[in-house]
């Protein structure tokens, strides 16, 4: 046996409610984060990630209540991201019961946050989320850059180098999203995933583009990802986490079943 490759369902939470239409047929309340997290736990999810997309600052405290409620009823690791700007935000999320906190845009504008946070709470709690897009032309060597604002704003940072810098500052894990692929369901950007995963010493979670179970297998075997994150294929009931794991095992990948 060996360390298992992880499957991580990702849920968008807005003002304390799960959004983006989770469609479990027999669930009483498809917007209830606790109920959905429990379901994914029962299906064998290895972790759960919540992305807080609450826009209004008046309602930002709702995420803490969600984390408290989920952490007291689901006993697998819980990562929370979205809107994390200060060490204090991280501390509050961890105190509420999160196991890891994901820092995205704030890491780009204030890399020192990653250093300060990892020193305060330990690298094992700090995930740096990287949104990358391919910037090389058709005949050039592949190259990807970090983008912010949902993939609209380039930053000029090379994705692989940026990931390495984040690890030097104390990131314990990298959540890598291909902005070219996100929402397309055509599979992960495998060259990007592989370049980052082979470029850093910490685990890399692949995200963006999953449309079927073979994509998960490709992410691990070709992309060298340590974990795969997906939203829609699980939310819409196309596949259960258990089916995904069985498929991965059938393709020679160690999973927790």
């Amino acid at each position, binding site marked *: *046996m*060996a*360390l*298992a*490759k*992880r499957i991580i369902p990702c849920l968008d939470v807005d003002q304390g409610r799960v959004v983006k239409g989770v469609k479990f047929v027999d669930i009483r309340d498809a917007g209830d984060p606790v109920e959905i997290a429990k379901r994914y*736990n029962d299906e064998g999810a*290895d972790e759960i990630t919540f992305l807080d997309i609450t826009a209004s600052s008046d309602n930002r405290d709702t995420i803490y209540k969600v984390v408290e409620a989920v*952490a*007291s*009823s689901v*006993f*697998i*690791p819980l990562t929370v991201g979205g809107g994390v700007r200060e060490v204090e935000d991280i501390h509050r999320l*961890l*105190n*509420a*019961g999160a*196991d890891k906190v994901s820092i995205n845009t704030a890491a780009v504008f204030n890399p020192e946050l990653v250093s300060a946070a990892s020193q305060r*709470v*330990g*690298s*094992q*709690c700090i995930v740096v989320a990287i949104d990358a897009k391919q910037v090389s032309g058709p005949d050039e060597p592949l190259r990807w850059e970090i983008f912010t604002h949902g993939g609209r704003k380039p930053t000029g940072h090379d994705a692989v180098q940026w990931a390495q810098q984040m690890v030097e500052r104390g990131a*314990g*894990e990298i959540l890598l999203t291909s902005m070219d692929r996100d929402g397309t369901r055509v599979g992960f950007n495998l060259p990007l995933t592989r370049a980052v995963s082979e470029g850093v*010493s*910490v*685990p890399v979670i692949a995200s963006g583009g999953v449309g079927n179970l073979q994509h998960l297998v490709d992410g691990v075997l070709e992309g060298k990802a*340590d*974990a795969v994150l997906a939203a829609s294929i699980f939310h819409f009931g196309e596949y259960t986490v258990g089916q995904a794991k069985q498929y991965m095992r059938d393709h020679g990948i160690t999973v*927790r079943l």
Partner: protein
Amino acid sequence: MSQQVAIVDYGMGNVRSVLNAFQAVSAPNDQVFLSNDPERLRAADRIVFPGQGAAGDCMAALRQDELDQVIAELATNKPFLGICMGMQVLLGHSDENNGTTCMNYFPGGVHHFVDNAEQLSGLKIPHMGWNSVAQTSTHPLWHNIPDHSMFYFVHSYYVAPEQPELTVGETSYGIDFTAALAADNIFAIQCHPEKSSTAGLQLLSNFLEWDGS
């Protein structure tokens, strides 16, 4: 029968998860609480000793209030569960933070995975995620947990007790290392049972039933 279960809270990492998980598996009359008060710890029936972060910080926090001495005392006479860093500091010495003297409850060292770099060959550090634990000896805390069940790990250092017979669980990550050790009333485990779903909750539940022998 109600019992008091004390989780030692000395400011090292997220003890909330440990509290949540014990509350989920304990009987309605059980009292599960966080404390760093020596008197409350002494009065408890069971001691849970968690910990996250770096060994140096951890030992500094324990020594600050002489909690290390209280822990050493409690470790002699009650069912005692060490988790993650709460396991590592029971050893004699950790290589972390340029060398940290630990509680030396169990002679032996705590080493970084990278010290075995040739065996690691591309494995990521920290060892983060679900890995299987081979039950190398029978123990009441393994009750109803299938051998080789997977548990959730997050760590860069591992324990190497001088007495190999202390090891009751073993995990492979580049090398085979001690994932769980036990002696008398102490059981200590490297992974996080509080985050290890069914298998982890079963282990915590077993601890609440264990008479410490």
